[in-house]
């Protein structure tokens, strides 16, 4: 019961801080930023606040964490107490410190992966739609072929080939995800390239890169941003499942996904500790989607 009340109070507190922050921003900002803040719903302010907190925690992890990430500092499965606030894990490492470092590892990797997938996928997708013809055929059929292979098995295959460093993890998941982004970006861009303003830009003699960057991308951004929110959550899932199979983030490194698994036995004893990393993932995905919804609302002109 105590935990549930703490969680509810904590969320309410975050909402209160978000409301205060939004109010402060409304009274200090000017110009375009002010306009953006004016129609910002409270959920978006909450989302931004949570993301900022995660970012700060991830960046200052060594300062914030009371203990090192990988050292055994206590006995197995210690209860919550004054020294180890959230207790210790099954080999005696401090849970709170690992949770804090986990923000750095899991969120950092997931963000880098999603961002990479979107940059590559959307540029190639728009390029294919713009150029059409054989280039579109080659890229699209190649992507179709990749998508025909189940994502997890394909990632496993690639990771076995390239080894399991963090970099190859990022590249592999990004490559798999980029195929989905490619399809979306291509479909969206196909609706845009037939517009007269694209013809006008072609008549002006603009190069493909300008067309992609200035003429098409700003108009395709709304669905891509929405997809970003969703993909970001799936990447967490992908990293966790790969970690579970021993091909993701390697054991001594703290990762929220594997932390849930390692400490799962505690749930049997009515201890909520293993759910904390899961809760961190859930909170972040909700926060990201709040912000994405707001951006989507702004970009799509639904506000009319």
């Amino acid at each position, binding site marked *: 019961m105590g935990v549930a009340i703490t969680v509810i109070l904590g969320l309410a507190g975050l909402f209160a801080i978000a409301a205060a922050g939004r109010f402060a921003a409304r009274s200090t900002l000017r110009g375009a930023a002010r306009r953006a803040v004016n129609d910002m719903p409270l959920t978006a302010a909450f989302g931004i606040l949570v993301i900022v907190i995660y970012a700060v925690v991830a960046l200052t992890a060594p300062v914030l964490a009371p203990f090192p990430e990988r050292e055994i500092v206590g006995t197995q499965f210690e209860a919550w107490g004054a020294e180890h606030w959230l207790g210790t894990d099954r080999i005696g490492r401090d849970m709170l410190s690992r949770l804090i470092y986990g923000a750095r590892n899991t969120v950092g990797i997931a963000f880098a992966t999603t961002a990479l997938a979107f940059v590559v996928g959307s540029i190639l997708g728009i390029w294919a739609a713009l150029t059409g013809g054989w280039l579109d055929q080659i890229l699209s059929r190649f992507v179709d072929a990749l998508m025909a292979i189940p994502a997890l098995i394909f990632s496993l295959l690639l990771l076995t080939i390239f080894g399991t460093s963090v970099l190859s993890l990022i590249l592999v998941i990004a490559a798999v995800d980029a195929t989905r982004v490619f399809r979306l970006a291509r479909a969206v861009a196909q609706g845009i390239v037939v*517009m*007269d*303003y694209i*013809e*006008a*830009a*072609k*008549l*002006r*003699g*603009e190069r493909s890169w300008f067309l992609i960057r*200035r*003429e098409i991308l*700003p*108009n395709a951004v709304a669905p891509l941003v929405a997809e970003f929110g969703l993909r970001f959550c799936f990447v967490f899932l992908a990293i966790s499942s790969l970690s579970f199979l021993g091909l993701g983030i390697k054991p001594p490194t703290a990762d929220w996904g594997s932390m849930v698994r390692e400490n799962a036995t505690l749930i049997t004893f009515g201890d909520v500790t293993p759910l904390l990393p899961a809760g961190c993932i859930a909170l972040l995905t909700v926060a990201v989607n709040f912000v994405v919804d707001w951006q989507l609302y702004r970009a799509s*002109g639904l*506000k*009319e």
Partner: protein
Amino acid sequence: MTRDVLLKIEGLRIEGRSGDTWTEIVKGVDLTLHKGEVLGLIGESGAGKSTVGLAAMGFARDGCRITGGTIDFDGIDLRRATETQRRGLRGKRIAYVAQSAAASFNPAHRLIDQYCEAPVVHGVMSRDAAAKDAVDLYRRMQLPAPESIGFRYPHQVSGGQLQRAMTAMAMSCRPDLIIFDEPTTALDVTTQIEVLAAIRDIVRQFDTAAIYITHDLAVVAQAADRIKVLLRGEEVEEAETRAMLDAPKEEYTKSLWAVREFQRPELAPAAGTPVVSVRGVTAAYGTVNVLEDISFDIHAGRTVAVVGESGSGKSTAARVITGLLPPSSGAVLFEGTPLPPSLRGRSREQLRQVQMIYQMADTALNPKLRLRELIGRPAQMYLGLKGRALETRVKDLLHLIELDPAVYIDRLPGELSGGQKQRIGIARALAAEPRLIICDEVTSALDQIVQEGILKLLSRLQEEFGLAYMFITHDLATVRAIADDVVVMQRGCVVEQGPKAEMFTPPHAPYTELLLSSVPEMDPDWLTHLLDHRAAAG
């Protein structure tokens, strides 16, 4: 002629929402319609015509609300009626014909199935009876092959036929009132006549009352018994059609008439090397030839109007000149030297010389770019302007098109009116400092008063910079106003060409004759006479 009152609207007030604030868009309009009477509702866009028309069905669009007044339809108070009662009336006693039949029909169902829906839902007829009735009405609407046309899908019939099928559908329950919302605006002049005649006949045959919404006075004059002029949600004046045409009382109404009187002075015949010369061009999409051996010249400081109905190849000719569609034979000469056939082969300097303005400013301006970049980009690209110089140039261009730079330079296209957007299209073309501007139906999506503003602007810019215009249009009133030379096209061929004065005086080629006689005139008897004349001749 005193007949029972069918619809009585008093002090109608409707508000529309923008953001969080509600602004009044209809400010106390009164309207009385007798049984079997046709009322024309005219005004420019934003006058509230369509909103009033929909309110006659007790309906307010999303983002609109009816805030005051009464709407009384044959003894039923539509504002107090429940949604179920209103739904019982719609389609059965009050029907609606939308501007774009192509967008209003469900593309997944055959015409006849959509026809039968209303009578069956309202329990007026069985499905079989309704299907029989549909054939009868299709015949009355003079649709070709009335027995079989209902079994086609909307995309399989032409725009004019679709509009007639939609009118037939509105008639299916024999309503007391039909609301026509700009039913012929999207059609060619020649098609418009057929639809207009069919609508007029059927309304008379069934003695149906109608509200005919349009911005074209000459059109409404053919169909309406009375005309009501609206301006910004308020009534300007109302009178019997003849009285209104002969002696409009208010200044605003007179200005609606005057629009068509704008005319440029006659120029001397062209001489010297033309800016652009199209020589024996044949072009094809795939294996179908859409242009067959066409030739014409465009001289500096002159406007060549290219006229014809849709599908006649006007826009394709423009695509050949700009290089979007390389011709299969023939050539386009720029000041005597041939241009490379394809866009890719042309140098930046060659591209700069020919600019285009599009029909739909909405799709021709990137909605996510600010005017600064929209207008500035050609100047930056072609003339290498940067920083302060570029900003000055953009401001000068905004001045040229009569928009205040301080207010508009950082706006998005979505924050402008239709006419202003079209002006931005003009500024973008001017920014390249071209010799030829191709105007593709630039005024056909605009109201008459806004049209006049655009035509005057184009004409002033032409004098100032010695520009050559290729003016693609199907509107002969525009041709009369702005052209120096006319090229008439039909099915990919040039039917007739020459200076304007010559083109507008007989004898004409048969197709030119048809086009010219199809332009509605400000005479309520014009359509009747024309149809009689054509029947006698044909």
